[in-house]
């Protein structure tokens, strides 16, 4: 069985400062990993994905994430937060082959202060 742990339920940053949203996965194999963003009253939008190619993945809106197998982590970062980044962020794991039922983390609410 696999699990996804988002270590922080809320992260608060000031505009212009770096963002770090943490995600750890637990799996007996290397899953595909994704970050989605959910703005209020909107659906989930794919930010970026890791599918066993480059371990540093760049996504939309200046976000990137690094897959570290030794740490079973896939943390999301952005060098400089913008007010429009305030949203809920979900880390998601897809198992390779067979069942394609993904596992969602609980989500991290990013709060950006002016």
């Amino acid at each position, binding site marked *: 069985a696999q699990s996804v742990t988002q270590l922080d339920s809320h992260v608060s940053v000031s505009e212009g400062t770096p963002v770090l949203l943490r995600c750890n996965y637990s799996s007996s194999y290397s899953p*595909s990993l*994704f970050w*989605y963003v959910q703005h209020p*009253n*909107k*659906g*989930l*939008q*794919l930010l970026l*994905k890791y*599918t066993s190619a480059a371990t540093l993945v760049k996504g939309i809106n200046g976000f990137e994430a690094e897959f570290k197998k030794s740490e079973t982590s896939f943390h999301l970062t952005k060098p400089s937060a913008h007010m429009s980044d305030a949203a809920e962020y*979900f880390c998601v794991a*897809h198992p390779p082959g067979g*069942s*394609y*039922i*993904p596992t*969602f*983390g*609980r*989500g991290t609410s990013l709060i950006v202060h002016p």
Partner: protein
Amino acid sequence: EPEVTQTPSHQVTQMGQEVILRCVPISNHLYFYWYRQILGQKVEFLVSFYNNEISEKSEIFDDQFSVERPDGSNFTLKIRSTKLEDSAMYFCASTFNRGTYGYTFGSGTRLTVV
């Protein structure tokens, strides 16, 4: 950019009533999904649908739930006899390739059972 469309955006129903949530997936996608997010909780997988049949379903997806693709365009989720605990945001998603490269989500239907 193609979108997944869900209607209605908000539905209020009385306990015990049947509801149908509607989704129009992206036209060339082959796999269709329903997810649920109870307020304050994580996103949960309900069911996946491919080639006009259910391919996978979670424990949540019991006999009260059913899905249908009646006309090659719409993808519906029916809850036969709603319970208070069915109150949640329901997301439809579609993908071309079983989710390996991520899903496209709709903006959700907020179901409130009173």
